[in-house]
């Protein structure tokens, strides 16, 4: 009798156990392959919120994890972003307004997404010489 009850209990437990889904991990990397330092100034609702500096060939990494999933990039809160190349040339990136640049850091489609495995995702955004030249063009009004 005891054995039967134990088997019933195991079945009940096996069917009712709430096993949480494994966490999904997201790794977000912003890399600077431009030949000088880049500074990113973040704004939200028109208010300056943070500043990030990335030296040449360096990167900034963010990691998020959650059972439900991970946010789409970018990995910070901002609706506009000022990118300053070498403390001299700057250009705005936007989330919702009309873009001047081809690859706004604030839009998820500008990031390269790599599905490492079922539970890990990698998102990369690389600043290159082309981004600097694009900023110069915009500055000159071309």
């Amino acid at each position, binding site marked *: 009798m005891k054995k039967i009850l134990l088997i019933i209990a195991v079945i009940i437990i096996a069917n009712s156990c709430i096993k949480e889904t494994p966490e999904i991990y997201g790794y977000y990397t912003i890399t600077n392959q431009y030949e000088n330092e880049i500074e990113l100034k973040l704004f*939200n609702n028109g208010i300056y919120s943070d500043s990030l500096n990335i030296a040449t060939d360096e990167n900034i990494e963010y990691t998020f994890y*959650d059972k439900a999933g991970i946010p789409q990039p970018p990995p910070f809160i901002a609706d506009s972003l000022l990118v300053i190349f070498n403390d001299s040339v700057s250009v705005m990136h936007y989330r919702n307004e009309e873009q001047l640049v081809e690859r706004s850091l604030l839009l998820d489609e500008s990031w390269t997404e790599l599905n490492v495995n079922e*539970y890990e995702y990698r998102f990369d955004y690389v600043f290159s010489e082309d981004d600097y030249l694009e900023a110069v063009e915009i500055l000159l009004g071309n």
Partner: protein
Amino acid sequence: MSIVFFFGCQKDQSGISHDISNTEIGFEKLTIQSEGLIVLGKKLDNPYSVANMQQAYNNLLQDSTLTQSLNIRTTHLYIRYLPKTNDEEELLLSDSTLELFDYPLDYEISSGGTFFQDPQIAIGNVTWQYCVVENGYQFLPIQYEVLSNLFIPEYLEGEINEDDINYLVDEALTITNNNDIDTTNIKNTKGKWSKWSPSGYINCYDDIVATTTDDGMTPVVGAKVRARRWFIIKTDYTNSNGYFETGQFRRAVNYSIKWETSKYDIRNSVSIQAYFNGPKQREPWDLDISSGKSLRYATIHRAAYRYHFQNINGLKRPNVWRRLKINYIDDTGTGVNWGNNWQIFVPGSPVWPNIKIWGKKNNGDYKPTNDIYSTTIHEIGHSSHIELMNGGLIQFSQVSKQIYESWAEAIEWFITKIAYNDLGYSDYDDPDHYLHGDHKQWWTSLDSHDYTPIFIDLVDSYNQSIEKGELPTNRCPDGGAFDGSNCYIGSPPDGENAFIYADNFYHTPVECCNCPQQGTYFDGANCFKMDIPDNSIGFIWNNSWYLYPAGDTDYPYDRIYGYTMNNVEQILKHVYGLSSLRSKLKSNKPNGMTDKHIDVYLNYYFNL
């Protein structure tokens, strides 16, 4: 199979240890290890045994030291129980007169630690439970042994004067080689031990607190601290400052924390009771728990204590019939809830946990403490939900995963936020400041459809579709002109009133029956302006018709507000899936909410 899963796959990693103090006891230095197995030293000759007390008394009689004659007899019993089933353990734990120890009280503790298991008892079974009871105690129907008959003069203060108690205990300690080394500096002018109260502060590290303080320490509230001198045990629970103060002693005491309350206990990966064994000393004990498993036990305790005993803004307590057993696993993973109360259906079942919490990320690093905290709240939230469904796993098992996981996510967000707000972090988990977090305002249809922000969105006032998303170029696809905030549809003729009826825009007719504006018509009572589209919510402002603007359709369109977690918990008892949720929300709308608000929000989930 389940048994294999429970016990066969878990490997305890007790390698992390650190010195917490170098405590002086007389002239001896003792290093206390804070992690791992409690290691016993040699068995001590028991000064409180009736035989040794009688010998001590005889010695003092020869010296004529005592002021009165004493009746040395059995006043207490040193015993141990061996509960073999969950029922037996519950019965033992429910006896609040017993102060139970997993380890024997008449051994040296050569190394402190966080757990003890008698090597003769198989892992997974409850180890011997040691305690002291009064002579004449009625034993519980559990296997037990009487280890020693005791005479404890400290408990006979009305019968024996204090000086005689001191002389007798001193002599008993001396003849059993247990007297502490020269202690003249702490004896009073008569050469006797003065009374003192063990006390101290228990704090632990927290990653959020560390963002604003040097050491990151926060008080551990409600921790059960025990001060023990042989068979005399006095306890206290830490207050809101982490402070405790037990009853008085005269000599040094062994300090320890037992991670348990009347509602839950915290165990290691193989379900052995978790402790923090502190030093033996005759001075206050201030402890900062900064790392290792003990930090995770302390964090789980903080969360469980919050849910059971502290402010949770009107949510119900878990109210699980049996003490929740929460196991901490020092490895990579999240959490599991095995349900409540099922043990009562299986008389003789072994001691299995209700909840398991894992402490490490996939790279092997420890998760931040606020994550351990919120995961604990999440899992206890499931237990509370099961209890809400009449405590029955069968009724609960009919609830969709989307509902019970989303509810646990909401509980996790709500209570963890209260806790950190109470610590002074008013913007903790604020979606305006933190992209990722328990607030789930980053969640989109690409993420798990089980762990959603449904219940959070009923309570918060944040529309992630607008605030987080990438907004469409056309903000008014269902009509109207975007005025920078909303979609302006129009205004009625001067002197008439705009209103909404049956989800249509109307205005009162001019005079008897005139509807002069193009596109409006008289329907027999009022002027019909337009049917509000299914995916839009209309409203009247300043006597004009408006629609809320479109947002990013990847995110839920959250114009719902005004529900409270308490309201929602009350209707949750009748919610099994999205349809029953919709029905219950509509019949319990707060002011300002309409069926349309609920439909527009929930349609997103129906269409996933």
